[in-house]
């Protein structure tokens, strides 16, 4: 029964936070505590699933193909734990960064609404229910982007919500096609039926619609334009939370669907996904290298790194998937961390634009270090987790003899390093620009502590790459062998 907690706890917290929305201090303390509780619960589920295999419950006592099943395997439990951990960090960061108006206007309840949507999407075993959780996620994130209502934010949020709504239309039409053909919405039941299905033409068109929907949600080429157009508009704490959670849920769902539903024409899907992954990686990083706003550079990087994760999916061997899962976890932490470090730069110097920044290394070496750690992790410098993530992925690629995509991945790594060094050079190393006066602001202690804690977590993820990789291997086996999932749900 512990499996219902990741959904009902955020709902409960959200209700409490709505009732107490004017008490600023209570909101801050309660959200921090609540996200710690949530992380603890998710970690318990992870431990249970890792030891005892896939866990499934039937809320409402309706048996598997008829009711809505909740399923947790190692991948989803790992994602849940990381998401809630990112939430803890953002909850420490926010009081020192987001202005009081936004904080009392419902920021905290919305964050828990978002977490409820994310957790729901991660553990649901029902197609339509998955759609509903995506909508919960979309609604909360839409309001979070627009919260505060500055003109720039509204511009960003309109783009965000329009394209995501269109993706939802694709999503729900695909569900309709599949339901009309097979008469079931339970993902495990559907997967079992597909394995004995004759005449799969409808199934491929439905899968393509799904693929389009999730490539919008996870910002794959060619549907990534909404992300850099909207992510830089809200306060960076919100962007950091999004970077650590939203697109990764899209990637997670893609993994789940590929594992369960791609039964026909696997050859085609593999080439198709690998091509898009390569393009996503490369185009994302090229566009990042041409930007001058820290937030935009980092936003384009999200896209490029989604490409790596999807590359692991395209390889589809245990080691490839495990590498992608490790990479996803690393990315959720490191990416959030770079955004938070960008927030520190903003508090210190009053700008995100590299042209108006400089001399930060001299002014405050500690802040420079806090950016250096996650940035080098993203670039893939050895003792940090980004290196291991890419290493496992590339190793998986070589083992599966996918040489071309592996070469693209290595090349992209170089460009990533280049764009990280660009931020480093411009913001930290070069002298203060002479024609503009760089603000000499103060960094709030809470933002500093949050960023430092997350940097520590990034380092630890690198140090304990072995155990985390073992968990990822376990998750990868479950993804590559969908029978485990199907049997756990249908109780065979």
């Amino acid at each position: 029964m512990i499996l219902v907690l990741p959904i009902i706890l955020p709902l409960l917290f959200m209700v409490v936070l709505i009732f107490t929305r004017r008490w600023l201090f209570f909101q801050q303390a309660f959200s921090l505590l609540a996200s710690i509780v949530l992380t603890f619960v998710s970690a318990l589920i992870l431990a249970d699933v890792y030891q005892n295999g896939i866990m499934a419950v039937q809320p409402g006592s309706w048996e598997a193909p008829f009711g809505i099943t909740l399923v947790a395997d190692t991948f989803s439990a790992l994602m849940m734990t990381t998401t809630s951990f990112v939430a803890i960090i953002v909850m420490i960061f926010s009081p020192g960064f987001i202005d009081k108006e936004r904080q009392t206007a419902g920021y905290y309840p919305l964050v828990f609404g978002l977490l409820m949507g994310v957790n729901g999407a991660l553990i649901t075993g029902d197609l339509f229910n998955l759609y509903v959780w995506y909508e919960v996620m979309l609604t909360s994130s839409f309001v979070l982007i627009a919260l505060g209502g500055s003109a720039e934010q509204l511009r960003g949020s309109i783009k965000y919500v329009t394209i995501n709504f269109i993706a939802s239309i694709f999503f729900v039409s695909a569900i309709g096609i599949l339901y009309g053909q097979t008469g079931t919405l339970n993902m495990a039941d559907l997967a079992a039926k597909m394995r004995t299905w004759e005449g799969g033409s409808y199934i491929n068109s439905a899968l393509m619609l799904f693929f389009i929907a999730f490539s919008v949600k996870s910002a794959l080429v060619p549907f990534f334009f909404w992300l850099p157009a909207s992510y830089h508009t809200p306060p960076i704490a919100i962007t950091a939370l999004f970077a650590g959670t939203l697109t990764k849920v899209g990637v997670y769902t893609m993994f789940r669907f590929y594992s369960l539903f791609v039964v026909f024409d696997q050859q085609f899907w593999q080439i198709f996904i690998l091509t898009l992954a390569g393009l996503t990686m490369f185009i994302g990083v090229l566009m990042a290298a041409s930007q001058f706003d820290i937030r935009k550079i980092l936003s384009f990087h999200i896209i490029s790194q989604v490409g790596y994760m999807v590359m692991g999916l395209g390889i589809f061997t245990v080691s490839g998937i495990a590498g992608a899962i490790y990479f996803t976890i690393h990315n959720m932490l490191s990416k959030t961390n770079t955004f938070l470090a960008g927030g520190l730069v903003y508090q210190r110097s009053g700008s995100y634009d590299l042209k108006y920044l400089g001399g930060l290394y001299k002014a405050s070496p500690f802040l420079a270090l806090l950016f250096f750690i996650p940035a080098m992790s993203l670039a893939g410098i050895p003792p940090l987790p980004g290196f291991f993530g890419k290493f496992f992925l590339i190793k998986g690629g070589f083992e599966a003899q996918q040489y071309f995509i592996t070469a693209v991945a290595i090349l992209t790594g170089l460009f990533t390093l280049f764009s990280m060094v660009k931020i480093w050079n411009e913001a930290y190393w070069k002298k203060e620009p002479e024609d503009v006066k760089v603000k000499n602001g103060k960094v709030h202690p809470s933002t500093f502590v949050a960023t430092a804690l997350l940097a520590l977590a990034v380092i630890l993820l690198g140090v304990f790459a072995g155990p985390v990789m073992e968990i990822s291997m376990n998750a990868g086996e479950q993804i590559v062998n969908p029978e485990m999932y199907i049997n756990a749900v249908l109780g065979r």
Partner: protein
Amino acid sequence: MESIILQIAARHMRPLLVVLSLIVLYRGHNEPGGGFIGGLMFGAAYILYAMAFGVEKTQKSLFFNPINLTALGLLVALLSGIPALLLGNSFMTGEWYTFFAQTAFELKLGTPLIFDVGVYFAVAGMLMLVMFSIMEE
């Protein structure tokens, strides 16, 4: 907009719609109706009132804030899952009780009704919240 016809209509329609929404809520489990549609009717009653008398006056006549009503609804819907846990069933299992069994007043009540009440509150609160903020512009 001051329209005497609308004002009189709204004054009389509001209690009627509220009572009707409760009926729709109750019969919802086995017949057309339910918490969602009931909540919409409840919200519509107050939106009609707001169209006739203005948002400010309507909000004064409400003794609660719409957003709190929504939160309360979420809470009630959540709590409706708990009795099943106490009885040792899976979360959200429908538990039914029959009052006055075998008599003319047989009344079947259960946790799905509590859930529907939660939906009723949540929908009504959200509808009023959205409409009032649009009408205030």
